[in-house]
């Protein structure tokens, strides 16, 4: 397989022709066998990761389990940021608005209506998606740095509203949220391990939705928008509905992340949807590798680990360490964590999720 390493370099498409086209043929025949290998390997890896994630409560203490749960909820928020930033090419700082909307909605439903987890997720996702529809209708008319600024404004606006609205506890935050239950009249999930499994479930469903969208015609068009929006126009596609649909889907997923977060912390304050959270989410995407879903998820885990766990050992200098981490990452991993693998394996020509 070493020969392929040189041959199928992604840059080879540029302007080399003729001769090169002919010499490729024998390669392709070999490509099929190596292809099945690269379909199987990721599946095995995925199975192992799922197994490890699911079994964490069996051998971790409550505090680390809570940390792992926060990683998953934050990772889902980061995935929603990646859908816009990495996949569609619209860098955003506004997903915290929908994250917060999902969290507050789930919390309020928990306090006033029902402690059923499914109802809370549905309400949180619905509220976040509706807000994304109305705010996105304006935001996606812009692009690039203007879009970034508009989404920053949306995030800050929701932050300000949360900070002053007494229904959601204003700056004190929303407290007294009961533990979620899974069936009507069932036992509330009080043990850290059970709550973690619930968060893991929400995370996996959110990830699955993101993955399915990515593989759908909508996902195809989203990637097309990133690579060349005007070219989509030129082949007859109006891109506004594509971008708005992407924005609403990403908003809904961010809302799900918020419900998962609040199910675990049972408390939510304006600080949880502040600018620093938005910035960390965007940086997790960069760190993990924009455009792949799993890369940013790992980036999110690294960010939470450094901020919440490692910083305890260095006198709360977590933010400083994150800064150093990002500078190092930008220099050594220009394509992020996912890109490190991508570069080594680009030989096979068929990863890049």
């Amino acid at each position: 397989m070493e020969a392929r390493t040189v041959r199928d370099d992604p840059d080879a498409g540029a302007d080399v022709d003729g001769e090169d086209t002919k010499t490729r043929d024998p390669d392709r025949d070999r490509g099929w066998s190596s292809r099945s290998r690269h379909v199987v390997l990721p599946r095995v890896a995925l199975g192992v990761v799922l197994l490890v994630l699911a079994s964490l409560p069996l051998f971790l203490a409550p505090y680390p389990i809570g940390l792992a749960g926060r990683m998953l909820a934050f990772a889902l928020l980061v995935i929603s940021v990646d859908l816009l930033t990495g996949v569609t090419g619209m860098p955003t700082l506004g997903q915290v608005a929908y994250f917060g909307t999902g969290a507050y909605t789930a919390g309020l439903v928990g306090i006033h209506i029902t402690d059923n987890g499914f109802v809370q997720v549905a309400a949180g996702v619905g509220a976040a998606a509706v807000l994304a529809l109305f705010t996105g209708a304006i935001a996606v008319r812009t692009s690039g740095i203007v879009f970034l600024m508009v989404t920053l404004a949306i995030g800050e606006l929701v932050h300000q509203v949360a900070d002053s609205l007494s229904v959601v506890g204003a700056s004190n935050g929303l407290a007294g949220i009961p533990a979620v239950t899974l069936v009507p009249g069932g036992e509330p999930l009080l043990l850290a391990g059970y709550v973690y499994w619930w968060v893991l479930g929400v995370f996996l469903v959110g990830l699955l939705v993101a993955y399915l969208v990515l593989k759908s015609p909508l996902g195809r068009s989203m990637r097309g928008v990133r690579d060349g929006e005007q070219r989509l126009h030129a082949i007859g596609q109006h891109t506004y509905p594509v971008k708005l649909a992407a924005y609403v889907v990403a908003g809904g997923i961010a809302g799900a992340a918020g419900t998962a977060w609040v199910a675990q912390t049972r408390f939510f304050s304006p600080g949880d949807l502040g600018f620093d959270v938005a910035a960390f989410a965007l940086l997790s995407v960069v760190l993990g590798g924009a455009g792949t879903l799993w890369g940013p998820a790992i980036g999110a885990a690294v960010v939470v680990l450094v901020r919440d766990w490692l910083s305890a050992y260095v006198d709360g200098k977590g933010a400083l360490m994150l800064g150093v981490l990002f500078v190092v990452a930008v220099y050594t991993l220009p394509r992020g964590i996912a890109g490190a693998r991508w570069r080594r394996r680009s030989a096979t020509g068929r990863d890049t999720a």
Partner: protein
Amino acid sequence: MTGEKALLQVEDLVAGYAGSRVLNGVSLRVRAGEAVTLLGRNGVGKTTFIETVMGMVKATSGHVYVDGRDVTGKQPHVVSNAGVAIVPQGRRVFAPLTVEENLEIAVRKGGEWTVERVYDLMPRLRERRTNLGSQLSGGEQQMLAIGRALLCSPRLMLLDEPSDGLAPTIVEQVGEILIDLARTGLAVLIVEQDLRLAFDVADRVAVMTKGSIVHESSVAEFRRDGARAQALLGVG
């Protein structure tokens, strides 16, 4: 409109970019099923012309009619839906999409072209269907760009220098594909530097200088008068 109704009728088109005027009143017709080549030196406005017809560059004045319908100043997707497809300069395939996705993204429901039909025309693409756009050779990218344009089921195809950056043998292959397409009754407007390709494909020649059309004739007539052609194109 008087006389024979043209599929593409451009009248006195003026366009440019911030502060500089590139097209100074271009008029050109392409009839249904006709293949026209637009020639001219670098920088005379050929690409701007194609992009203005497509609605990617805003026209300052003048008109673009497609099948009698005024599409001047309309968005590119409106022009595309009116039956005009573009194969842009430098191919511009979607690098992060596979060959198949590059084609599927352009498919029109109920259009006469399907992905399978494109594969039949260019079997090379079928072999490469799972490769990313960025992993193709220049010739394959060109085929993909042509296939993508065909899937818009156009009645007129605008090609901006399809030979650009391709090895001579590949240019020949692309030329054969274009000749086949022109025979099916698809109208073609092709901007070219490679005269051989242009003359093989086209019936009629239009020459552009400094943002306006200075010569129009049949290909045969144009080739007969070598001295004139040289003067117009400045090739030596």
